[in-house]
């Protein structure tokens, strides 16, 4: 126990001293803040520019073959009505007027033609805006308000669903169990490389003999796993907490929908299932990573195997719609039971609520047994394969040893 805490502290401290950890930990939130800041300021300046645009006045000539345009609107804009389209185009080309708008007789088949003096890529949109505004303003009073909201896509719907006689919102229901999916994704994405490097470090530094005669391989491996989990959770907090604070403070300015976090439904069985699948899946994959780290001589070789593991873990994300729409499909069943691909389908389907109890009853023991086997194998390979500095270790050799 004393050695386990020593290993955990040593691993955590030395990782926190690495620049690469902080670049990874801070790089993502800094990038997100930068992106949101760009979006926010871009939105603000666009709105400001659009507002300024509305107050700009420019000379307009109009030809209306639709007979929909109200003269009062054209008068308000001080627009001049002409009948000759070619004349209007010529007036713009010669600089006599700033713009010319041609409304063809059948606007369902032909576009409204707008001609104008170039005033820059952004300001040129004022001509188009005025042409649309004149048309909309002219017809809006001639149709019913409901019809107007339908044709302008402003009619909204509000869906309420029930399950077992009670109101049930599947989106809100999936948020808490779904957090384990996000957590799993985050931990694997952040810690996979660190875990691999950490395992292979003793071998690359040729320190393995001194270590193995001082501490049990199992203690060292467990210490590494625990420290990497702690570091990944810390890394996750660095990302999630500022994001959460940013959402709560600025969701309206960023046009994000508001979700009252205190009113989220708490489905205890699904949350516990998510937690259980998460823990076992994470143990399974850390075992796989330690196994890879112990079997190959260098971090470079290990990263090649890591790629394959990552494809297996995250590959099922490409079938997300299938997991939601066809949970009984044979492919979904297979991916949910095969230990290398199971975590994402199991966590996602549990969050969505279409994971059958019998599937969980089969998948979970498979994952538990796989995790136990892989962790034991990882410790054994670390123990007996760690002295192979220049070549990969075969399973035959490992099991060949008494």
């Amino acid at each position, binding site marked *: 126990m004393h050695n386990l805490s020593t*290993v955990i502290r040593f691993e955590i*401290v*030395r990782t926190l001293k690495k620049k690469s950890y902080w670049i990874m930990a801070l790089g993502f939130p800094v990038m997100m803040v930068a992106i949101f800041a760009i979006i926010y300021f871009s939105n603000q300046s666009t709105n400001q520019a659009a507002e300024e645009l509305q107050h700009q006045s420019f000379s307009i000539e109009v030809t209306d073959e639709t007979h929909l345009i109200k003269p009062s609107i054209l008068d308000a804009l001080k627009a001049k009505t002409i009948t000759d389209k070619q004349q209007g185009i010529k007036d713009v080309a010669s600089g006599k007027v700033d713009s010319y708008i041609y409304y063809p007789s059948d606007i369902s088949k032909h576009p409204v033609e707008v001609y104008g003096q170039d005033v820059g890529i952004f300001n040129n949109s004022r001509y188009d805006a005025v042409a649309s505004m004149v048309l909309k303003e002219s017809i809006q009073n001639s149709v019913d308000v409901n019809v107007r909201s339908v044709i302008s896509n402003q009619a909204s719907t509000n869906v309420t669903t029930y399950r077992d006689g009670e109101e049930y919102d599947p989106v809100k229901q999936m948020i808490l169990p779904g957090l384990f999916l996000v957590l799993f994704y985050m931990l694997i994405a952040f810690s996979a490389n660190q875990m691999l490097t950490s395992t292979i470090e003793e071998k690359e*530094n040729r320190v*393995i003999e*001194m270590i193995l*005669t*001082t501490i049990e391989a199992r203690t060292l491996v467990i210490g590494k796993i625990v420290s990497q989990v702690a570091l990944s959770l810390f890394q996750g907090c660095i990302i999630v907490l500022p994001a959460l604070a940013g959402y709560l403070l600025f969701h309206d300015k960023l046009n994000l929908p508001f979700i009252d976090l205190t009113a989220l439904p708490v489905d205890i069985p699904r949350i516990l299932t998510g937690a259980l699948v998460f823990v076992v899946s994470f143990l399974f994959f850390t075992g796989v990573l330690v196994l890879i780290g112990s079997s190959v001589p260098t971090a470079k070789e290990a990263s090649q195997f890591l790629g394959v593991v990552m494809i297996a873990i995250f590959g099922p994300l490409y079938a997300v719609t299938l997991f939601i729409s066809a949970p009984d499909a044979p492919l979904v069943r297979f991916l949910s039971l095969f230990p290398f691909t199971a975590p994402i389908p199991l966590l996602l389907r549990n969050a969505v609520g279409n994971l059958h109890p019998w599937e969980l009853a089969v998948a979970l023991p498979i994952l538990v047994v796989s995790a136990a086997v892989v962790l034991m194998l990882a410790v054994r390979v670390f123990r007996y394969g760690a002295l192979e500095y220049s070549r990969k270790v075969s399973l035959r050799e490992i099991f060949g*040893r008494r």
Partner: protein
Amino acid sequence: MENIITIKDFKMRFGTTEVIHGLTFSVKRGETFGFLGSNGSGKTTTIRALLGIYQPTGGELLLDGKPYSVSGGVKLGYLPEERGLYKKESVIDAMVYFGELKGMSRDEAKEASLAYLSRVNLSDKANTRLDKLSGGQQQKIQLGITIMDNPELLILDEPTKGFDPVNRKLLMDIIEEHQAKGATVVMVTHQMDEVERLCDHIILLKDGVSHAYGTVDEVKKKFNKKSLDEVFLQVYGNENEETK
């Protein structure tokens, strides 16, 4: 005197090749033992099997009457042939880490580390990263880690490898100090003068087989030679010709 190391009929096979063929010897508590042999004769393999790094194919390798385990029994200081440390750590952090793993408190480990660094004139390097030290300085740090908790059994695999004469002298002084404190020392080395000066018993290994085992005088007498250098040349001298 009781045996601290007992090796009986030790056999080791890698794949289809048997590299150690029924090796038997013992080391008594408190003595200094020389483990001699040319490169590839099986010395390091024997040490690794004794310390549980390799699983033996056959035989018994015991420390204080039982197979070595890090959690109990003999307090061991092992300097492996394969040199290495956590290169990106500072000298003091690496030493304190190993000290703690050996069961010392953090303060004890720090105190022992600083005392050792002062002794080997590396006090100013305490906070330097290990990869910024010369090879010889790194060797000294590794030796410091090996002896920092005053082990009762010191196993030193080629301890003078890479040391200049000054540092070799320093190392020998340190070994003698531990001898004086009653530690058992097992030296794997090619330095015959040091073996003659320090060792009580020796074993000569060739191709995984013991060619001589006894006190230094007994071995010299067996080969009718005046020095161990001459013995070594007689036993291993024709190896190069054999391999041609």
